[in-house]
Structure formats: C-alpha cells, structure tokens
C-alpha cells in the first residue's frame, strides 16, 4: 500500500523530502478548501517534487457555482495542469470539465461523501476510462462491503488513513459575524452544542466558506494489514496541522507496527474513531423516527378515524376512492397505540344522519366502539 500526504507550504516540503518518495497533494488556495498555496507555488513545488521522484497531485475539492467557475477558468490551462501527475476533484463539474477538455490529465475522483455503492463507483470508473488515476473511496463503506468492492474494482483506490473528518461545508461566512472585533478567519475555533452532549467541534472559516469537523479524527491505521489484504492501493495521511508526526506516520508504510500507530495517535493529542469501518447502521434508527403504526402498509387501507364520541359514534374518513364498504363487511381498526379491533358493520350513517347501505368516500359514522382513538387506521378485511 502506498502513502499519500499533503504539502501546504515549503516547510512541509522540507519535512517530506527527507522521507522516501511518495505521492503529495498540493493544495492551491483557489481550488482547495483548506489550501494555502498560490498557483505559482504549486508549480514550483511540483517541479521540485518531481525531480526527487515524488508524484504530485493537485487538489480541487472546492464546490463551485457558475460565477466562481467562470473567474477560475482562465487559470486552468493545459500547461498549468501538466505540472501535476493527477488532479483530485469532488465537483462532478470539475471532473467533467477536465475529462472533456484535457484528455491527457489524469483524474482522481473524490467520492468520500457521495457514492458508496460499487455500482456508482463503477459508473465513474467507466466514465473516466483512461483518464482515471484512482478513486478516493467513501468513508461510510463498512469493511465487509469494502472488501467486496475492492475485489471487484480493477483500478487503484484510496482511503483516508488518518486525519480530520469534515462534517459540514458551506460557502457562507458564518463565524466572522459572531466575532466582529476579531479577525477569526483561518483560525480554528471550537463549538459545543448547547442542545446535545456533543462538544469539541473544530470550526473554521476562510475565504472559501465555513467548515465544521468532527471532534474525533478518523483513523484506519490499525487496519493497515487488513486494508492491504483487501487490495486497497493508497492510504492518505492528513497531518496538515501536525506535520511533526509525519515521519512516524510515513514509517508505518515500510515497517508497520501497531505500537507506532498508538504512539502517533497519542502524540498527536487528538481523539480518534474508525467511523463506519466496522459496521454502518446509520439507517436502522429510521423506523423509530415515526410511529410505524400510523403507516397503512396494507392494500385494504380505507382511511382514518377523525372523531370518536363516547357512547355515540366513531367517524371514519374514507380516503380511498377505490373501495366500497357495505353493511356486513368486516373492518379492522389499528390504533396509534398498537391495539387492533375487528368489527362487522351493522349500521352506518353519513353526516346528515342518514343510514347508509354502502359508502365509498367522505365521512361515515359507525356506532361507538371502545378503545378506539382518533388517527386510528381502518382496513377492510378480505372475505374468506
């Protein structure tokens, strides 16, 4: 497995070049969410890196509206792009633009928060064809699924090995308005929810927007050997504000030791999680978000009880225009509390207090039944 890391400055580069050649992500301010380099600096560094055998990647992970795109467009020339081994993009507009206009440019699509299925990843791979350099995979794919995807994919792949986990990204400036007397731009602030136990969210505003990170960083380094066995080709080390730990992290790639992973994690002063690597159950709570009893999962659903008058009536609003109910039919009522009651229609009236033999729509009043509450669902029982 190969190492990929970031270079944000010349100081970073001094650190990196002491190690073995690897792949380096250069982050221009105009294209990258947290980038600090000018285009000229990127080109200069890329040239120096190439000479020492490093592969250079240009990061373009900004999402862009049409006007930002138009102002950026003149900078994106073939000669500029030729300075880099590949370009990393998240915006599918950027991906499309590079693919169509610069067939010689290799592309690394960033699919970290979007496409989690093999099918979607395979579509991107097919779309890019020869232009694809490698795919940056979603962090929400659990390992069981990941191993299947990696077995099927025949192209190089990358995951975040260690680094911050971005939770939220908006182009709006949200923090500076809160601290009007201070220049908080490009400084890490910390947020604590006042309505949940969650605190310690790193917050950052720069001229590209506002970002919120998870209090715990992401780390999959413990799974280095397993990921290698699955067939992952690249692991990314994002120590952008902790470059002093870079050599230890890089050392793991030639001489992996669990001890050094722990040393790195402890030394960095951050807390870590493995996110959804072991299992992803982020859809199992959905059933609890609403009362399942109020969902009429039955083709014989007739409508809802809208009124209950003790000792007098229960009132059914017939929703379905398809079904007719008649005297003698058997109905089942399911209450929001989970009770169920079956009854045979002995009489029914409309709002004019006229007795009905059958009804297909509107309000129908039946003699009162105990334990039935409003919002109960009513179903026609099939005749056996």
């Amino acid at each position, binding site marked *: 497995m190969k190492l990929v890391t970031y270079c944000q400055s010349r100081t970073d580069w001094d650190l990196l070049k002491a190690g073995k050649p690897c792949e380096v992500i250069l982050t221009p301010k105009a294209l990258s969410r947290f980038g600090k380099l000018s285009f000229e600096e990127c080109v200069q560094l890329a040239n120096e890196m190439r000479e020492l055998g490093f592969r250079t990647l240009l990061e373009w992970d900004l999402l862009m509206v049409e006007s930002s795109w138009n102002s950026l467009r003149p900078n994106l020339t073939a000669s500029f792009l030729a300075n880099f081994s590949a370009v990393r993009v998240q915006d599918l507009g950027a991906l499309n633009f590079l693919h169509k206009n610069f067939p010689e440019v290799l592309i690394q699509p960033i699919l970290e928060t979007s496409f989690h*299925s093999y099918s979607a990843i395979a579509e991107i791979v097919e779309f890019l064809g020869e232009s694809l350099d490698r795919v940056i995979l979603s962090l929400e794919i659990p390992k069981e699924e990941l191993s299947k995807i990696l077995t099927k994919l025949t192209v190089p792949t990358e995951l975040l090995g260690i680094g911050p986990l971005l*939770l939220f*990204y908006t182009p709006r400036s949200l923090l500076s308005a809160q601290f009007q007397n201070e220049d908080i731009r490009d400084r890490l602030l910390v947020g604590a929810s006042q309505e949940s136990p969650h605190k310690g969210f790193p917050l950052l505003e720069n001229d590209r927007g506002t970002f919120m990170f998870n209090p715990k960083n992401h780390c999959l380094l413990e799974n280095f050997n397993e990921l290698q066995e699955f067939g992952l080709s690249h692991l990314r080390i994002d120590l952008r504000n902790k470059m002093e730990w870079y050599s230890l992290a890089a050392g793991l790639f030639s001489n992996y030791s669990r001890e050094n992973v722990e040393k790195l994690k402890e030394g960095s002063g951050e807390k870590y999680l493995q996110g959804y690597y072991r299992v992803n159950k982020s859809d199992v709570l959905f059933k609890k978000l609403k009362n399942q009893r109020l969902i009429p999962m039955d083709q014989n659903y007739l409508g809802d009880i809208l009124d209950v008058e003790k000792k007098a009536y229960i009132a059914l609003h017939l929703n379905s225009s398809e079904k007719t109910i008649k005297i003698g039919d058997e109905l089942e009522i399911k209450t929001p509390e989970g009770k169920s009651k079956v009854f045979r229609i002995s009489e029914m009236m409309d709002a004019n207090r006229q007795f009905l033999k059958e009804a297909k729509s509107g309000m129908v009043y039946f003699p009162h039944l105990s334990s039935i509450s409003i919002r109960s669902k009513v179903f026609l029982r099939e005749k056996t």
Partner: protein
Amino acid sequence: MGTPELLAPAGNFEKLRTAVLYGADAVYLGGQNFGLRAASENFTDQELDAAIKFAHDRNCKVFVTLNSFFHQKDLETLPEFLQYLEALGADAAIVSDLAAVKLITRTSRIPVHLSTQASCNNSQAASFWKDQGVQRIVLGREVSLYEAQSIKEKSGLEIEMFVHGSMCMSYSGNCVISNYTQGRDSNRGGCAHSCRFEYQIEDPSTKQKKNSFFMSSKDLNGIGVLSQYIEAGIDSLKIEGRMKSYHYTGTISKVYREALDYYSLHNSFSKSPREYWDRELEKVSHRSYSEANLLLPAGPDTVYDEREHVDNESQVLGRILEVHSDFLLIEVRSAFEIGDTLELVPFIGAGESVLLTSIKSVLDLEVKRTRPGTTVKIPLIPGAAPYNLLRGLS
C-alpha cells in the same frame, strides 16, 4: 415567456390533496424507502397508486423522490419499485445517486430529475448529468438566478429551483453531522437538523466565547423576485417542506399559484397584490425570510440566529370535509367557539371572513366550543369547497 411549473411538497396523502387543490402543477413525494425524509409519513405503495390517480385526474404531475445516496444493498430492491412506479405513471424520479440514475435510465422510461442533494451548481456538472440521461436539474441553493439562467442556456436542461421554504445551510449532500453525532445518515433521510442547534463557540486563542445559532439559515422567500425566476427561464419553482403542515402546503401553494397566474395574465407584477401575498406568507409558521443566494451571495443577515419558535402562525381551525345544502362538516384541528371570526381559505381568490353564529355536533346538538379531534357542523359559507382550510382571525 411561459410561466414556470409550481411544484409543491406532499408529505402524506392529506398534504398532497391540499397542494393539488390549492394550485400546484406538480407535487413531489416519497415512498417508504429511498427518499430523504425518513421521519415524514410518506406514501405506501397503495397510497402512491391513489395519490397519482388523484393528482393526474386534476392535471397535476407527481415526482417521486429516490434521492438517497445508495449503499449497494439499498439498490437491490430499487428495480422492483421502479417497475411499480412506471406502471403507476409517475411523472419523474428525483435522484441523487449515479447508480440510481443509470439504473433508471437503462431500465425504465421514467424521466430523471437530479435532486438538489447532488449539489449540481454549475453548467459543467449539469452537462455531466445530462450525459447520464438526466432531464432536469434541481439546482443547489447556492446558485443565483443569474447563474441558473446561464446553466440552463449552456446545458439545455430543464431547471428547477427552490422558491420558498427552509434551507439546508450546508452544500446539500455535504453535511454528515447527523451521521457522526446521531448515527443517522443524513444522506439517506436521517438529518437531525443539528444546524438549528445553539452552539457555544470559543476562540481558544483569546478565550472569547459566544453563544449562537450560527449555522441556522433563514427561510427562503422568493415572492419578491418571482419575475426574475420567470425571466431567467426557470422551468419549475419548488416549495420546500414535506414535513410541514397542510396549512403551510395549502397557503404557500395558493400564494405562488396566484402570483404566477397574475404574471401570466399581466406579464408583469407592477400592480400586483404583493402586500396581500406577503401577508399570506406571514401566516404560516416560518423562520425570518431572506432571498438567500438568489440575487447576491448570502451574507450574515441570512443567518437565523435565534431559537426555533412558532409565533407567527395564524391558527388553523380545521378543514372542510363535506359541503352539504345547509351546513359544512368540519374536522376541528384547533378549538373555536360561537362568536369567533373564521377565515375560509378558498382554492382560488381572497379569503372570506365570517362570524360564527352556530356550531352543531354531528348529532345536531348545540356546541359552544369545539374540541380538536372532532367533527362539527357550521353554517354554510358561500364558495366553500371540501378540503378548504379554515383559519382563525385574531
């Protein structure tokens, strides 16, 4: 220049009926799976059938949301559902995920609309999706009207934009706060609205602290720039809010219907009853309004820096269930009594205020004060129709 389609939310059958009757040209709704509103009631397969028939009978289109970012296992059951939707005659599927887009375009004839969740914000991205078979793009809320026009011209695709309702503060599809704090995938319908929370923000270098709702966006209100939507050639105006009340659905659909009809008649808004529309838009529960990014990039004044509260909603007393020759049958949602003034909200035209002189129970007994969750009879109001809303006038 034709007027755009008015597209309203339908969180359940009752809201669908309200949206259709109050003038939506199209509604969007979700089945029990694959959408982004797991907490909304949504539609069962049987209800979908009835909903599509109800809407089509009234010349209204139905778009079905399938806009999750799919995991492989979620994709397995999608083909069967697509077949069902096609058989029902669904007018489009709203999709974010590339695998789902390709599956639909390869195996069905259902038109594909790209969900705003895909954060398609520029013409290059629109052109990518066009190549994948998408017919319409629901643009990200970051896009201005001017940019939308350019995207439409360059891509040749149909363009849908939000015109009213709550706003996701993040680039859509790029917020995973719920995934990591609540264990609920916001891109599969589990958003916990953490952006609406109060946060304490600390600057560690100065130790300065500030409490604020800094991530909460004001609601979008596009009524003031409706002519710009039309002039930009936007094909569809979308109202947000499948989770909102039927009062919201009805009121907002009615206002925009009337505004669009006004424009198509007069070709301008210069003498329009704008103040009346503004007053109506104030009557539903909402955060402070803004025009967000429609004309200029959203500034600090578009943040809703206060706790969520409902103080501006006019009270919904109920809805009319049946119109008889001598009475209206009402489903009571909020209590009212004899002597109250009610406002009938007709499907078309200005509301009618009436002083309530009599209330009877279904058993024809006199009632002084109604109770929510009951049905009662009140005297006829001219022009009333089944499913009209009744509001209280304070």
